[in-house]
């Protein structure tokens, strides 16, 4: 693998963030910068054939309190392709199992001298708490049902590569919106970039309240299908469902699975996406998942690109700003009286 270490990349003037916690708080121009940078790095690394040394000497810690294979691997590869070292940490068998709080664990990892902590946790808001406690950069790799910003970005990058942009497109997120961090990151990201976003699924998984904040709510996939440019089929998260939100998988598949029959009623150039891992036969049938409209594997490739971009941008901001101490960023969360 040739090392094109001499590459110099101009640092975008509009980027000042040292953490990537959520897409809800990002401005459209910041999302644009992330996507542009991801595309640039994807091209520069030639899809993994070239390795850059933009981040050599830095260390990325993967601090995962929840099982993950693909996101963790993707972050590791992204760090390595830019020349950074990686440190793997998972909660099983660690001090977390011995009762240490996640903040203490993160501080321990930071004390080993890391530049980024990539974190996944089943409770919303844990990356925010870490960002308040740690000096290094924090990347959210999924916090409960809250957000999964790099997943949202890689989905947007994939759409953009096929359609040239996001503005004006109709994108439907189908399935378990209630428990999906992927859905929330996609919702905010797509909305900010000018797409029309539909959330579709049974009312037990798609709250009518989404309509109050600017998203179209639908319960029938068949009704919205002819209008959709992109379908993002969310995984039914069996492990997150403490209660039954629909009568059976069989009935769910009948209503929401993307199959050959539905493909015939969709737009000619519809893109079929899924954040994976996919449940074949539940939200998507094999012939659709493996068919010509499916961009599921491209999403995986783009995942590395957006994670490279995120690591590089956050490190650049941190290098330019120095220690967090003395910054006014310390989020004083004095409550607002109503």
């Amino acid at each position: 693998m040739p090392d094109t270490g001499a590459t110099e990349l101009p640092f975008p003037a509009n980027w000042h963030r040292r953490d990537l916690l959520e897409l809800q708080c990002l401005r459209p121009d910041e999302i644009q910068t992330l996507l542009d940078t991801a595309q640039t790095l994807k091209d520069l690394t030639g899809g993994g054939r070239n390795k850059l040394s933009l981040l050599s000497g830095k260390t990325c810690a993967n601090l995962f309190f929840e099982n993950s294979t693909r996101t963790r691997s993707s972050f590791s590869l992204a760090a390595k392709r830019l020349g950074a070292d990686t440190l793997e940490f998972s909660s099983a068998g660690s001090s977390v199992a011995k009762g240490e709080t996640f903040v203490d664990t993160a501080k321990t990892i930071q004390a080993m001298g890391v530049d980024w902590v990539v974190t996944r946790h089943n409770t919303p808001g844990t990356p925010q708490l870490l960002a308040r406690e740690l000096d290094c950069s924090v990347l959210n790799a999924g916090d409960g049902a809250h957000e999964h910003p790099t997943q949202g970005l890689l989905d947007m990058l994939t759409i953009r590569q096929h359609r040239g942009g996001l503005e004006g497109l109709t994108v439907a997120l189908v399935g378990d919106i209630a428990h999906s961090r992927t859905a929330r990151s996609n919702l905010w990201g797509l909305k900010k970039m000018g797409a029309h976003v539909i959330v579709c699924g049974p009312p037990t998984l798609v709250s009518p309240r989404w309509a109050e904040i600017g998203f179209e709510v639908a319960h029938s996939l068949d009704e919205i299908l002819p209008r959709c440019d992109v379908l993002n089929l969310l995984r039914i998260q069996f492990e997150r469902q403490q209660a039954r939100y629909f009568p059976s998988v069989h009935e769910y598949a009948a209503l929401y699975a993307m199959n050959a029959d539905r493909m015939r009623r969709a737009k000619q150039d519809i893109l079929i996406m899924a954040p994976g891992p996919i449940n074949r036969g539940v939200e998507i049938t094999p012939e659709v998942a493996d068919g010509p409209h499916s961009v599921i594997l491209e999403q995986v490739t783009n995942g590395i690109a957006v994670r490279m971009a995120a690591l590089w941008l956050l490190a650049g901001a941190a290098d330019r700003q120095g220690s967090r101490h003395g910054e006014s960023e310390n989020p004083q969360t004095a409550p607002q009286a109503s």
Partner: protein
Amino acid sequence: MANRKTLKLHLKPLNLRGSTMSDLLIENGRLVDPSQGIDRIARVLIREGLVAAIDPNDEDIPPQCTCIDASGKIVAPGLVDLGVELREPGFEEDETILSASDAALAGGYTSILCTASTTPVVDSPGAVEYVRQKAAKANGVRVYVVGCLSRQQEGDQMAELRLLADAGAVAVSDAPRPMCNDALLKRSLDYCRMLKLLIIDRPEVPELAENGVMHDGQVSLVLGLKGLPTEAEDLAVARDVRLAEATDGRLHVGPVSTMGAVDMIRRVKSREIPVSASVCPHNLCLNDKALESFDSRFKVHPPLRSPRHVETLIEAVVDGTIDAIQSGHMPRSREKKMNDLNLAPFGAATLETTLSTVATFLVDANRLDWLTAIDRLSTAPARIASVPGGTLAEGSPGDVVIIDPDLTWVVDAHQFRSHCISNPLDAVELKARVTHTIVGGAVRFELTPGVNMLANA
């Protein structure tokens, strides 16, 4: 904020535990006593632990009488709390009877009812006796025990209610757990009619609230946090008030937090059903948007609701549909609250901020006058629990709070006397502060500017 009078306040080390009762004259203060409808400058004379006279003649004032100059201050009956978790025995890392007593005094409370979030639970006369003895030793605030309604708080069969009452329990409840067994609640309401014993229910249907962390609404939807739906409270309140009506039993529901609860309580009260209700101060001034910080100090129960609920609760306090404001003091240790939002327990130390919260967000905001505020914080809860206090009528206990209504201060939970340092109003500037708390004629708390502030004196 910059130009306001913000005194740098310092608390005198609390070394008053042994202070002797003496005759006490509180002069020049604005007496606010809802029980007598008094709101005027008056002198209060306390002799032998009891209120001897309002505006006594000079010749009736004993010569060795201690005088407190309450110029510019409010003098009111000491506050009464309908439900404080003491956590002792079993959870002394969260709070002890002694630390809660100190916290209560600093907050202007002279009487508190304590609920049984302890191990063992207070479901036997011996357990009631244990709490009473510990409280007597603390020799601070008056502690009234709320016994368990069901054995082991299991919601299966009645505890020995008469024996609990004989041992000194002033009410029974499974709080902080809700009473989930409808049949048991109905039978208990029937049974307690004979004992004239108050039942307190903390209304919630567990199946609807399961694993909830915050108010179920737009904010929880966006944050991806599991919600506590208002229906979980509404359904429990509906059942509670209906059973109270059916049995004519004496029932208190609270703390409540929803429009639905207020609506149902208002309706049964119009039919003169003997139901009373209470609310926590933070539910009157904060809403669910506070959780956008993901800070566990806003994880309280009942949860901070949306602004519509907050407004409805304020209106209900103003019009008396909600009778009482209770601190909602649910102390939990720092290490427990340090966890992420799912793992951190519900709870906050609010005894020391309740009065100032009400003063700031209701009185200063012109929603409530002082007379009504003191009624909701003192007179009404004393009446509901049938405990002495809540009044400064002649012959009543010399339980007094003196408040400086113009003093502004910034909450610093690390300075709390409570073991718990989590409070949803931490770092917020509040108006009005307790300067003296007098129990049975003895000054048990005094706020003194100029002395180094020592935490947990």
